[in-house]
């Protein structure tokens, strides 16, 4: 059994949060650069140029990319042959999150749902983190992290179709969700589509799909084709960067598909703004 010190987990999480708050990952930067080069609308092109300039300023001056520094979302795959010494893994992730958000001057955005009171003093600075655990083979802890903003989360939707809806029904649904959203979720977007499983499995799959490298090709050729088809359809909507009108609304569509019940076809659409702050580390 491999042993990992609690404090080493805290430090690793803290560092990834500080980095993601201020440095746009290469895949997102390149995708926005490509969108800028391809955009036909001069107004949207100017917005995309501002986003690249913003990313440069944030990186060079260590400023948060966006004032919405998100909720901290983790997918954590824990090897069966690894143990954290000196405390609980969940506590270490939360402690690292709090440290990272404070050290990088990120915003504390968690609140009580009805009074809307900020939880920074009562629970912790931007706590609790949203953590999805899984158990896997091996002696490592694999951590995928994203800072998820509120604007794009607010337009995300889920439904359970009857099986007859099929692929066409799913494509139409995604189009409707993105069309209704317009400029609100800060396009150009990454669109995560979770298909199948159960109601919550589709939702979690749509979230996890957003953690994939932008520009990577789906391993399943059928899904890869469907991703391209949906992306082309969405870019016909004309929404453009920040809703100003344009040809580049969507940077990528990522699908995660699961086996499901014979009676159902669950679908979830999770939307990611252009500031796709995500990272993958192994501890």
């Amino acid at each position: 059994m491999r042993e990992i010190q609690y404090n080493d987990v805290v430090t690793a999480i803290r560092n990834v949060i500080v980095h993601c708050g201020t440095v746009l990952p290469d895949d997102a930067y390149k995708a926005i650069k490509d969108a800028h080069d391809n955009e036909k609308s001069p107004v949207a092109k100017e917005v995309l140029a501002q986003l690249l300039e913003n990313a440069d300023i944030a990186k060079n001056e260590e400023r948060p990319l966006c004032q919405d520094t998100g909720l901290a979302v983790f997918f954590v795959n824990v090897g069966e042959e690894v143990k954290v010494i000196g405390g609980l893994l969940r506590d270490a992730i939360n402690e690292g999150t709090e440290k990272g958000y404070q050290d990088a001057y990120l915003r504390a955005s968690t609140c009580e749902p009805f009074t809307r009171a900020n939880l920074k003093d009562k629970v912790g600075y931007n706590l609790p983190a949203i953590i999805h655990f899984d158990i896997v083979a091996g002696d490592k802890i694999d951590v995928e992290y994203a800072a998820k903003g509120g604007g794009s989360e607010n337009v995300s939707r889920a439904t359970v179709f009857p099986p007859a809806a099929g692929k066409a029904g799913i494509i139409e649904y995604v189009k409707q969700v993105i069309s209704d959203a317009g400029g609100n979720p800060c396009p150009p977007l990454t669109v995560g589509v979770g298909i199948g499983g159960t109601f919550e499995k589709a939702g979690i799959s749509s979230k996890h799909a957003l953690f994939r490298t932008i520009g990577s090709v789906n391993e399943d050729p059928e899904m890869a084709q469907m991703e391209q088809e949906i992306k082309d359809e969405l870019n016909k909507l004309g929404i453009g960067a920040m809703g100003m009108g344009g040809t580049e609304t969507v940077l990528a569509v990522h699908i995660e598909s699961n086996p499901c019940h014979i009676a159902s076809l669950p679908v979830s659409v999770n939307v990611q703004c252009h500031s796709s702050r995500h990272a993958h580390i192994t501890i």
Partner: protein
Amino acid sequence: MSKTYKLTTPLTVDQTRELKAGDIVYLSGFIYSARDAAHKKLADLIEAGKELPFDLKGSVIYFVGPTPPKPGDPIGSAGPTTSYRMDSYSPIMLENGSLGMIGKGKRNQAVKDACKEFGGIYFGATGGAGALLGKQIKSAEVIAYPELGPEAIRKLEVENFPVTVINDTYGADLYQMGREKYEVK
């Protein structure tokens, strides 16, 4: 053809009536930050006939909840938040003298109608460009509701703060116009 203006707050109706959807404006002077919770409090004060923490006349309200400042800086990153959440409050602000709002994302018909009636402008700033926009803010002072943290009302001194006219005083909407132009049916 869109025009470029440099304006200093407080604004006047003569100025706002000149602006058209698509125009670019560089704002200087003082603007006030307020999000959901602060809007509710302001609306309650107006309803009760009480004094507001700042003079609404000619004011520009910025929908923003900034990150905390780094040592030595007046403010952290400070880009716009999504505006529709303020739709139920904005007409009251415009009716009582405010002439500008800065945010991102579409507004409802009631806000557009109030812009026409009272000479208000809805400006869009680039969402997610918080580092860039934060640098155009020269000073920041919490003037009300510090308990709201990032949602407190701040008096912000801006210099050449870049915004685009989304909804003008004639009912035009840049989001609709832009999308219609590039939509492939």
